[in-house]
């Protein structure tokens, strides 16, 4: 299953606008995408509630896992959101 570990760059962490963008992008893919702390449980990447509940702050590493046809493309796009400082996306 394709997966990768990404460091969260936006100052807000996975909150506010970066979280909105992340969830919106994850929902666009019709495959299962999960995200979580590196050593923690994974949650549905298309759920704003689940993402908010993770409480990921700037500078933390997160693990992204996807399964399905466009897994790599989805992970590329989500990685880009997490690695882009806010306002430069």
């Amino acid at each position: 299953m394709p997966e990768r570990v990404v460091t969260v760059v936006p100052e807000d962490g996975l909150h506010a606008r970066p979280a909105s963008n992340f969830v919106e992008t994850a929902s666009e893919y019709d495959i299962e995408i999960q995200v979580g702390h590196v050593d923690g449980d994974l949650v549905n990447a298309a759920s704003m509630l689940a993402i908010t509940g993770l409480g990921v702050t700037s500078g933390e590493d997160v693990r992204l896992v996807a399964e399905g046809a466009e897994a790599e493309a989805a992970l590329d796009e989500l990685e880009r959101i997490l690695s882009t400082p806010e306002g430069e996306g």
Partner: protein
Amino acid sequence: MTERRLSGVGATPLSGVGTAVWYAPDAELGSPPDPETIDADVERERFETARDVAREEIRAERERTAARLGEAEAEVFDAHVQFLDDPQITEGVEAAIDDGLPAEHAVDRTFEQFIERFEGMEGQMAERADDLRDVRDRLVRALGGGERADLGSLPEGSVVLAERLTPSDTAQLDPERVAGFATVTGGRTSHAAIFARSLALPAIVGVGAALRNVADGADVVVDGRDGALLVDPDEETRRETAGAETVEVRDGTVETADGTPIEIAANVGTEADLASAAERGADGIGLFRTEFLFLDRESPPGEDEQYETYREALETFPDGRVVVRTLDIGGDKPVAYLGLPDEENPFLGERGVRRSLGPDTDLFETQLRALLRAADEDAGGQLSVMLPLVATIDEVRQARETMESVAADLESEGVSYALPEFGVMIETPATAFLADALVENVDFFSIGTNDLVQYVMAAERGNDRVAALGDYRQPAVLRAIHTTVAAAQGTDVWVGMCGEMASDPEVTELLVGLGLDELSMSAVAVPQVKRAVSETTVTGARELAARALAACTKREVDCLLTETTQ
């Protein structure tokens, strides 16, 4: 009765006196009916319908908030749509329906689990609990679970007391009527606190359980500066607060103590604002935002409809000036019929005059026709047209050519019209740098400090993390203002200011010293600023401005201003 003092966190440095009004949102849902009587398919359908209703409402609320308070405040509602469509929510509600609950109880139970979870967390996550409550209440209302308590029509002088206020609650508060609010929960960065600052409303958050003992109808003072709510205030406290905030309304032009007139105008964003601007003694309208004419509808307003609105504004100020800003809209606003582009950063995208000279040129021409016709009538004040988000001289020339061709059309049709004053908003650093060239092309400048600060300092409004940067007391901002005013000196071009800075009486003397001819602000601030102008001398103000312009840090500017106000 002795005065009691409850401590909290001041959300705005403002004070207000009033009567406590407890705001209890919706009544509790009763106990659920017998599961045997529930048809799960029907309930699922009711839930789907309620979601559609709630989604539409959130969109409308977002538009209104963006127009009234600004984009940063409006973004809160984007997250609300995502909560509404969250798979954990929808799956949770459907499972609860399958357990035999009606849709409203299923919604309530599902949301409550998440609200409890977020409430136990710190900072930003705890605030999400307020967002969830907001979405839940909307859904329950859409399912017939009670009318929303109307915060928009409270008696004048109410101080709203509540456990908490959701973004939708706070956005409804009318600063003209409400004297302030105090909440049990919340911190300086909670939505309620941020909205209070945008509304310039006295507010205390995070008072704690002690607030619950304040009776409905009690006399209270909201002291935002010290972060305290005073219950049954002594006569002295009440007088001090009232004296500080309730300033006599002065009609007519105000002059500095040494005889220089300064025009004090109001910013308006709706037709209702016109009356309150006149009541508060504004000399005219320094910023008439026309976006409200275009939002919340299926197609753009026609020429006649706009003409009537502009006429009404001019008739409200028969001896004054009404500065109408042409449509200032961009990709951050959901106006379906405009087909606005989806842009990564709408604040640096195609908006304001860029659209008026591009895809919205037809709308621009219609708006100009209505404005030129309105400018002609005898009964009423003087009309001025102002362009938003100008960055180049070419834009100004092209807009003027459009206005002249509209005038030629009206002429050939035999329709009476007049050419209004023509000016630009100074809100991009580009216009400040180009001010000496722009004076050849315009009749006036109006410095829009909210955007100017944002663009000069590269710090967005409403973002607490960069609040110290996004401040109009920054030396770079003062210098941009100075450059603009200096370019107009010795010409016929007058210079005004619209934006938060103009409404702050602590900087009025500085602005007079910098050479502003006109200050335009939300109507509530007009009496205070008029008083501040009358207490200022131009000689003293110029000295202050010279020292402020020599300052290299915001700290030095702050010190200068504190010295003079004490």
